[in-house]
């Protein structure tokens, strides 16, 4: 079920009305479990059974880890949980990818092997809910979380519909404590949740799908050579599209959760105002970057190891981060590029950290522009369907097609320019702040007008747009 669909509007209205009409906290939680499974099953009912079985398994494994006496035993149960979750992810998401690469490797040594094509349907949101569930057993093992005694509560923590299919990746440790006592209905919180949902839908439907996606698609799908201006505008359109698409979904999720009395953390913090790549990853898909930091980078040694080892760790983490997004080498290159950016940034910091000019405004602005540019270059690999498209785009961007085609219409160029400029302006003006502070500072009439305009624009676009990009991950 998509947030930007009529079915969700009706579903959400019914769930919210029923939820706040019921007095019993247990009954409310039961309602949310049923609603979450309907939300998920409305896409493909059999996969709801898969979701439940992995959740139930992790619930049981979590209790085994907590009860296990010896270190080896605890570790054994954790390994079982990690293997179960990652093998599920591996089969559904990477099955065909692994087979194709195996076939390619055999062909290199002269063995012709035709693997059977596995007609595997990717369960929507599997990358997200696997991490929701995995965080539970990992945190119990790490001693930062007590296992819950309620299977229902854990099922709800993993499947809570606002964040189920496209994040944010909400750790069980952050959600389970909210299931202990019933939240009260607070009008301000509820209406603020609705405003956030409107903002999220506006970002998705109006900014991502209406203003940017058409141009990005036209540029990336164009089979001929493109001039530099069109190539850059196409990449900038995609940079804006993916931000508004994913950040829009996350804001919708946060808003929907607030309407039900739950608090989810920010998943984006004005990322295109990042100065440097470590700053970018503190602002972009925060729930994934902190997940990888806490469960992968720090256990690998984090910053407490020799610089060369830390650099290798960074690249490993970003490689896996890239692969998490999709079973294709283009995603891997995207991850590796970001890994290299982070390593280069560390080297630069070591070399110039103590220089007076390193922290002045002009340097910071230049570093911000360089960060945005490098992030855009990496997006080429994220968006391109294969390396042929990626190399054609890069050649275009760096002047390799001086006689190439200029296909974008003036309207499309204006849309990309205006939306991108507006986005970057907002990000820079709020980079040290947050949306709540910004709204509090605005005059009431401005908040009212902005909300009304966003809602009217959603009505005008008729809410009919594409699925969220991150659903495929």
């Amino acid at each position, binding site marked *: *079920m*998509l947030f930007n*669909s*009529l*079915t*969700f509007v*009706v579903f959400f209205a019914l769930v919210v009305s029923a939820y706040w009409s019921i007095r019993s906290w247990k009954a409310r939680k039961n309602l949310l479990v049923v609603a979450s499974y309907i939300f998920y099953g*409305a*896409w*493909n*009912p059999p996969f709801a059974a898969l979701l439940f079985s992995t959740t139930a398994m992790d619930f049981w494994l979590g209790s085994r880890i907590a009860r296990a006496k010896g270190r080896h035993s605890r570790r054994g149960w*954790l390994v079982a949980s990690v293997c179960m979750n990652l093998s599920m992810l591996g089969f559904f998401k990477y099955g065909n990818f692994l087979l194709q690469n195996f076939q390619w490797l055999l062909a290199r040594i002269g063995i012709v092997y035709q693997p059977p094509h596995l007609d595997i349907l990717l369960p929507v949101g599997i990358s997200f809910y696997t991490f929701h569930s995995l965080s539970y057993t990992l*945190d119990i093992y*790490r*001693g*930062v979380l007590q296992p819950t005694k309620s299977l229902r509560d854990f099922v709800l923590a993993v499947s809570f519909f606002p964040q189920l299919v496209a994040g944010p990746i909400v750790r069980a*440790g*952050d959600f389970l*404590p909210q299931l202990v006592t019933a939240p009260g209905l607070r*009008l*301000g*919180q509820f*209406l*603020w949740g*609705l405003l956030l949902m409107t903002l999220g839908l506006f970002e998705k439907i*109006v900014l991502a799908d*209406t203003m940017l996606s*058409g141009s990005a698609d036209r540029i990336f799908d164009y*089979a*001929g*050579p493109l001039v530099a201006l069109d190539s850059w505008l196409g990449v900038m359109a995609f940079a804006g599209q993916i931000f508004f698409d994913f950040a829009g979904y996350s804001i919708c999720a*946060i808003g929907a959760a*607030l309407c039900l009395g739950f*608090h*989810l*953390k920010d998943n984006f913090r004005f990322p295109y105002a990042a100065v440097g790549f470590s700053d970018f990853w503190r602002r972009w898909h925060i729930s994934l970057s902190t997940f990888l930091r*806490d469960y992968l980078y720090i*256990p*690998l*040694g*984090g910053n407490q190891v020799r610089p060369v080892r830390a650099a290798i760790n960074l690249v490993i983490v970003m490689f896996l981060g890239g692969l998490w997004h999709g079973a294709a080498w283009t995603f891997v290159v995207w991850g590796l590029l970001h890994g290299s950016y982070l390593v280069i940034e560390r080297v630069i910091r070591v070399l110039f950290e103590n220089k007076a000019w390193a922290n002045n405004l002009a340097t910071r602005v230049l570093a911000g522009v360089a960060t945005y540019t490098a992030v855009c270059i990496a997006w080429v690999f994220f968006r391109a369907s294969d390396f042929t498209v990626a190399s054609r785009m890069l050649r275009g961007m760096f002047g390799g097609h001086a006689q190439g*085609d*200029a296909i974008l*219409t*003036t*309207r499309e160029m204006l849309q990309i320019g205006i939306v991108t400029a507006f986005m970057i302006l907002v990000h820079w003006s709020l980079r040290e702040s947050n949306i*709540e*502070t910004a709204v509090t500072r605005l005059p*009431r009439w401005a*908040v*009212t007008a902005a*909300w*009304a305009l966003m*809602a*009217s624009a959603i*009505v*005008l*676009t*008729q809410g*009919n747009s594409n699925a969220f990009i991150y659903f495929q991950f």
Partner: protein
Amino acid sequence: MRSSTSNFKRKLRLPRLFFAKPSEIVHRDYERPIPQLPWRGITVVVVLSVIAATFSWEFYCRSIGYGPTLNDNEDLWTTTRRRVKPESVVIVGDSRAWFDLDLDELQKGLGKRPVQLAMGGSCAYPVLADLANDENFHGTIICSVVPRLFVAPPGTPPMERAEKAVRRSHTQTLAQRASQYLAMPLEEHVAFLKQEELTLDELLKRLPIPNRPGALVPPRLPPYFGTLDRERRARMIEECARPGKLQSTIQQIWLPLFTPPPPPTYIPKDEFAKEMGKAIEQRFHDVAAVVQKLRARGGKIVFVRLPHSGGLKALEDRETPRTGIWDRLIKDTGAAGIYYEEHTELAGFTCPEWSHLSAGDSVEFSKRLVPHLRKALRL
């Protein structure tokens, strides 16, 4: 003394991957800040403003001639596709089949109410292939042929439109199905819910902004001139059936839309023509295979060339003459064909906007078409 296994693990460092103690305890009692504003008052003003803006927009759309109609999207098509029974009479093809074939008259004449699976601006082939691959289907297909659409190569909008609908019919989720059922009553009553024209995206496209030379500007599509019902039967609105601005605007839109686009700049002209030729040959081959497959199960098919007039007819006759695609199609498939110009009782109709019959004429045309269909299908 450490065991060799421990040393190996230490060297490999793998076990530390998940097992290291956390550097810090995660903050557990997170609560989002809520801006302290008079939310009740703000919400009331927002709701009233949005309601006022929506009603104003609806009145404006109606005042400039728009009326409520269903949107022809892949979900409506899927809803209709689900009605196909093993022995159904199914109409496939393009928008001429929508406007020109009256389901009531065909039901009277053929004994079964046809299922309307034609799609505006689409190629018939993906739907024909879908029906041929449906092992349960052994009914009758009435296929409208507009040559340029019928031989549209893969990757072009006519093919993608049909493929998208067919794909949706196989993959439609319960949520998408529910959304379609919720959308239909709204679309039947609200004029601005016309996705092809009145969305923000389409309104922005109409801004009169000059373009650079070489910019790929998609051809303009005709404005609203018909309504679609739940059976996907289209009827031309009165304003379009009468001579006037709407009619002449649409006439002038068809001409560039039906004119072959220039080859892409990055492919040599000869090579492009060769590729197009190959794609058309492949289409003939594929359609013949599909027809054979259908017939092997006892299915029947008749190809129909429906009326078109004026400048559009002159253009189609010049670019896609009958001796080209139509004759070849009938010869290769061995199927029956009804070319409206061959029959005086079918040839006398005039399409007001050059491509489709008016609502009234479509009933009469369908009545006159029935005997030809019965003969072609040996009923």
